[in-house]
């Protein structure tokens, strides 16, 4: 794929993600899963199981989400780099 198209697609993805903020859309940007959960609980349902372990606090949770993304990004970079090197030889 041509380099300009790659760059355009990557910029497009960033733009789509940033659009709500650029458009100044208000809201707390809470998770949709939390919203669905509140809706269900409003109907009187109570969950019958709890997570075995929850990250103690928001900071720890973002750490683990960042870790998940880092593992993925590292792995993807490794594979693409390896394939790239193999092709050169």
């Amino acid at each position, binding site marked *: *794929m041509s380099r300009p*198209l*790659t760059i355009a*697609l*990557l910029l*497009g*993805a960033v733009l*789509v*993600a940033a*659009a*709500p*903020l650029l*458009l100044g*859309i*208000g*809201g*707390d*940007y*809470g*998770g*949709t*899963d939390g*919203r*669905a*959960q509140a*809706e*269900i609980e409003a*109907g009187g*349902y109570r*969950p*019958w*199981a*709890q*997570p*075995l*372990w*929850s*990250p103690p606090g928001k900071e720890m*949770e973002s750490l*683990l*989400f*960042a870790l*998940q*993304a880092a*593992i*993925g*990004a*590292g*792995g*993807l970079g*490794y*594979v*693409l780099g*390896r*394939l*790239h090197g*193999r*092709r050169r030889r």
Partner: protein
Amino acid sequence: MHIMEGFLPPAHALAWTAVSAPFVLAGLGRLRRMLAEKPELRLTLGAAGAFAFVLSALKLPSVTGSSSHPTGTGLGAMAVGPAATTVIGTVVLLFQALLLAHGGLTTLGANIFSMAVAGPWVAWAAWRGGRRLGLPAGVAIFLAAMLGDLTTYGVASAQLALAFPDAASGFAGAFAKFAGIFAVTQVPLAIAEGMLTVVVMKALAARNATLGIGA
């Protein structure tokens, strides 16, 4: 997304576990056969798993003022096939259920079905269909990844509507309610996922990555 721990009544949780289990077992078998036939597929599999890890960790804002995350499983469906992608999605869901309290073990079956079975199979079918109709590869990949992402959230909405039908309007009313929360928020995220999937698929193809042919 991801139906939270305990948020499906026991009968539903059990039923979805029973529905998803054969897909996971078949996926493991398919994966083992594929790697025995083409060991070089290991790298592509790594890339598909890594992509799903990144994308499902990114909670993105949407035009509805809510946040959600893409799934990243459409790429796997095209690169290593939907059956093997079920295994990738299951690993991601287990990671999030055990370490992030995101999703859960009682709802794992339902979440596997939406994100690791329905999404990848729809993405794969859309990709094959698009190619057969003569769409350019990039367009077919974009549409496939986008539809796979939206399917995941559509199925999750249906799962919740089945478990919690509206008192007055039944399944349809509840589905509209849950889809209103999930699907609308998901549209821009699905578009972004489509764009990123095209970039990574093309990057793999340009480096002559071995791709799994067939389901």
